[in-house]
């Protein structure tokens, strides 16, 4: 078996086996709550490739994108400011520790009070949850700039904006990306919850409607869609990360030898 073929087999083997097992185990199912996989897949096609795509799925993703982007900007800006100033950091640390320990979903009822159940609330929920990992990881990344690198910049008189760009941000970028990844997971959770909890449209809302209306195969298909979305977003993130942090993966690979 050639190396490529072997690798391909390993990638596909277990998932294929699991899917096949699921298919056959559920094939003759008469359990109302556990329909056959074939029905779920059929429902998937019917449900999600019609108007729902534009009416529910895309707006949900758009809100996620907007909230996530805002959280990145706010988190990195505040994080850099806090990370660079030891006094600011010491002052804000207990407050931040507390605010970040509040589980983000808990803010949904609060934000519903403040902003109703429209788009604003949903985006605010996502921002308020995603900003913390980005902020805290940015602070860590900025704090841990290498001392020799900082001295080099000082002795070559690289200051101000140039120093911020070339030294601080890039040095902190691996840590910032870690925060961004955690923020993405939280963002997806919040996107779904804000719609499940109280909403009139959106992906989460639609799935909950199916659940309440006992449209079980459609519900399962929704769950499947959420899973696929999670995976797809994760892949996109990985691709972007590899471009931005190519140097970092390289240096770690070398160090590990």
């Amino acid at each position, binding site marked *: 078996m050639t190396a490529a073929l072997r*690798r391909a087999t*390993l*990638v*596909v*083997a*277990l*998932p294929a086996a*699991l899917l096949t097992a699921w298919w056959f185990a559920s094939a003759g199912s008469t359990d109302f709550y556990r329909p056959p996989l074939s029905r779920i897949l059929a429902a998937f096609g019917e449900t999600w490739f019609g108007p729902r795509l534009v009416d529910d799925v895309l707006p949900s993703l758009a809100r996620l994108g907007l909230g996530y982007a805002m959280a990145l900007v706010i988190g990195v800006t505040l994080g850099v400011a806090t*990370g*660079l*100033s*030891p006094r600011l950091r*010491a*002052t804000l*640390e*207990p*407050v931040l*520790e*507390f*605010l*970040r*320990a*509040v*589980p*983000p*979903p*808990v803010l*949904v*009822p*609060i934000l*519903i*009070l*403040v902003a109703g159940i429209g788009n604003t609330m949903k985006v605010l929920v996502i921002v308020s949850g995603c900003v913390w990992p980005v902020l805290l990881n940015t602070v860590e990344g*900025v*704090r841990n*700039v290498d*001392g020799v690198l900082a001295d080099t910049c000082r002795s070559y008189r690289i200051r101000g904006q140039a120093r911020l760009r070339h030294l601080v941000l890039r040095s902190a970028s691996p*840590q910032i990306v*870690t925060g961004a*990844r955690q923020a993405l*997971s*939280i963002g997806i*959770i919040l996107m*779904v*919850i804000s719609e*499940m*909890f109280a909403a009139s449209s959106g992906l989460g809302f639609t*799935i909950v409607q*199916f*659940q309440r209306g006992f449209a*079980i195969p459609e*519900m*399962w298909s929704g*769950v499947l869609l*959420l*899973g696929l979305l*999670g*995976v797809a*977003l*994760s892949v996109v993130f990985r691709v972007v990360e590899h471009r931005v942090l190519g140097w970092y993966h390289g240096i770690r690979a070398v160090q590990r030898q």
Partner: protein
Amino acid sequence: MTAGKTGRTGKPAGRVRLGLAGLLGFAALLELAPRAGVVPERYAPPTSRIVAALVEQAGEQRFWTALADTARTWATGLAIAVVAGVALGVLIGATPLLRAATASTIEFLRPIPSVALIPLVVVLYGATRSSTLVLVVYAAFWQVLVQVLHGVADIDPVARETALSYRLGRWARVRWLVWPTALPYAMTGVRLAASVALILTITGELVIGSPGLGREIAVAQTSGAVPQMYALVLVTGLVGVAANLVTRGAERRVLAWHPSVRAEVPV
């Protein structure tokens, strides 16, 4: 020789004082803003009223039951996730074939958001603790598993060959080589899992209605008891802080022997 890390703060006493100032400033802001009419009191009651509601809650049995429920769900879910994560992580990590065969499945299942399972568990288990527990275990498990896999992969090849050349058997190697190398990663995984577990616990209680603080918050919100709702949010924040402190303390204790506490592997 060099400056080391940039941005040292100075004497610890000064830092504590600054931190306290920050906390007090924050509380003062939350007290004055509603009173001054900057923020509508309906949405954001002043701190004093929140604290009063909190004290009132603390006198009720219902509150403590909910707190205990949340704590129990969190701890149970976390424990299951950690045990399963470590066991599977070491098992899979130790065998290259298993690693390679499961890699694609893990990479696929891991990013699936737990909340996607909410409709499923509601339909299958109803509004009970079990539903939330499924969410918690599912989310926390992956955090632990991935970190442990990284830990096992991080074994120094030179150390491994030394162990082999001294003819250490499989179990001896696990005990003296695999476990100590993977332990810091496992602790990182526990820390991440603890935080995720709390989030999912509260989420489950909030959305599904399992017993716990989350459900109390939902109830307070629908009945318009705003100060009570904020008081409960405050409590969940404190629970979160407590959970963080506990896991960080455990990490420090368990890793006291370790020369360096590793940074999170960006996963």
